[in-house]
């Protein structure tokens, strides 16, 4: 019990003092996970829309693969990306292993299936007649997609939250492809593992609290956007 209080006190102290390293790790965590989520949205929403609106051969297989991907263990994704990016791997020449870019790729692969899955589900729930009307009124593809995004805001913001949550909270893949390098690829989750390993449980608790509060704040903002229309 004492350890837990010490941890909370240490967290408060580190925040109050504006500990440079924790701030730096926090900003990096946000940057990497936001980049991964943003790319996942750019690819995932149109992909989800296509899967929701079109019928083509192999669609069932792709949807099943997306659903599997939604529960993909981060260590598996980390291992696959590491094998590809290692010096001796097929893309080793790019020198991407142990860089933030490699972490963005791994987190993107983790959040993409969630974004596709959530978009697919929410776009599929739109009344097909509404979509028919859009076409009838002469909207082009981009306009239809844009109107769909507006119409399914609620579900799509759930996709953003799920995708971001998966990216920021995973540790296995970030550890393997990032290497937890101080000042380069150390993020909140990998730093927590390191400090736990070093027996610095107070610092580990402090880092965990930063992560939880951060995730909460991001979700608070997104939920605010999501629910706004329905409150007023």
């Amino acid at each position, binding site marked *: 019990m004492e350890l837990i209080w010490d941890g909370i006190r240490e967290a408060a102290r580190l925040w109050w003092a504006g500990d440079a390293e924790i701030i730096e790790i926090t900003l990096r965590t946000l940057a990497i996970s936001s980049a991964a989520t943003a790319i996942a949205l750019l690819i995932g929403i149109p992909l989800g829309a296509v899967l929701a609106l079109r019928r083509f051969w192999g669609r069932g297989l792709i949807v099943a693969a997306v659903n599997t991907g939604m529960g993909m263990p981060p260590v598996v994704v980390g291992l696959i990306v590491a094998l590809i990016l290692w010096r001796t791997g097929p893309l080793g020449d790019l020198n991407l292993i142990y860089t933030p870019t490699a972490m963005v790729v791994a987190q993107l692969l983790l959040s993409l299936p969630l974004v596709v899955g959530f978009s697919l589900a929410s776009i599929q729930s739109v009344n097909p007649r509404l979509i028919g009307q859009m076409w009838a009124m002469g909207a082009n593809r981009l306009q239809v997609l844009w109107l769909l995004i507006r119409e399914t805001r609620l579900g799509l913001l759930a996709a953003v939250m799920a995708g971001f949550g998966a990216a920021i909270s995973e540790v296995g893949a970030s550890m393997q492809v990032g*290497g937890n390098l101080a000042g380069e690829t150390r993020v909140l989750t990998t730093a927590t593992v390191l400090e736990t390993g070093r027996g610095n449980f107070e610092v580990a608790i402090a880092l965990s609290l930063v992560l939880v509060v951060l995730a909460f704040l991001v979700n608070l903002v997104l939920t605010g956007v999501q629910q706004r229309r329905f409150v007023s």
Partner: protein
Amino acid sequence: MLGWLILAVLAVSASIAACNGDPGYNEEELILATTTSLNDSGLLDELVPIFEAEHDVRVKIIAVGTGAALRMGVDGNADVLLTHAPASELELVNAGDVTRRTLVAYNDFVIVGPVHDPAVIAGMRDAAIALANISALCVGGPCEFASRGDDSGTHKKELSLWADVDIDPQNEGRDWYLEVGQGMSATLTVANQRGAYTLTDRGTYLALLEDIPELVVLVEGDSRLLNFYSVMEVNGDKGRINTRASRSLADFLAREDIQAMIGEYLRSEYGRPLFIPAAGDSEKAISARGGAAD
């Protein structure tokens, strides 16, 4: 589907990377594969920045189990290795995977366990016989032994001690043998919670001391418990290995002033050295002296 996605995504990142500069061998970067226990001690955080400043090289320290670190050397995925598993390291030397192996420092392993010591091993000088005692007296549940079980240097050392008394603890039905499969501090935490014995490097034990009140040092001083750390330079024939920087790092770690820093590291905090410098010495000579500093 997933494979296709990975390729698509990597193609995008590839184009980003291509803009960043020429792909291929990177002069300014050195990948050092080392063990979690050494990384957790914090020693490298002290030494590596000095090296980086002197040589204008960025060292990427990748902390993994010794098994993984050695494998990274064999596969050419690291430039230089810093590990503590002499027998496995010599295999790499003999196979030509590494061009040079330099002894850097040593310390020792200890067997820790619960104060009430159900297997009566306290004060034993022979670590393997102490393990034999544990295997004989822990049957039926009075005590347990927590093994790293992760192919780390410490795990390899533990297995070699079991082999010395012809016991195979992984045999089925060994209900007192726990394979934790994690790092040293996680294993010590498990041992502390369950009142189990375990083999640990002294450094990690000392670092965690306050958090593992149930565990005390019971067996120490056997020359087989010496823990040797060596640096190995990966063979440049594997391609794209930064042989120049890896040679510089090995020379750096063996240098007189750096050896002195290694010997002083956390010495005042623990009242004894965490690492004893050993460059220029040999494992054989140190073992013959019973681990006493030269």
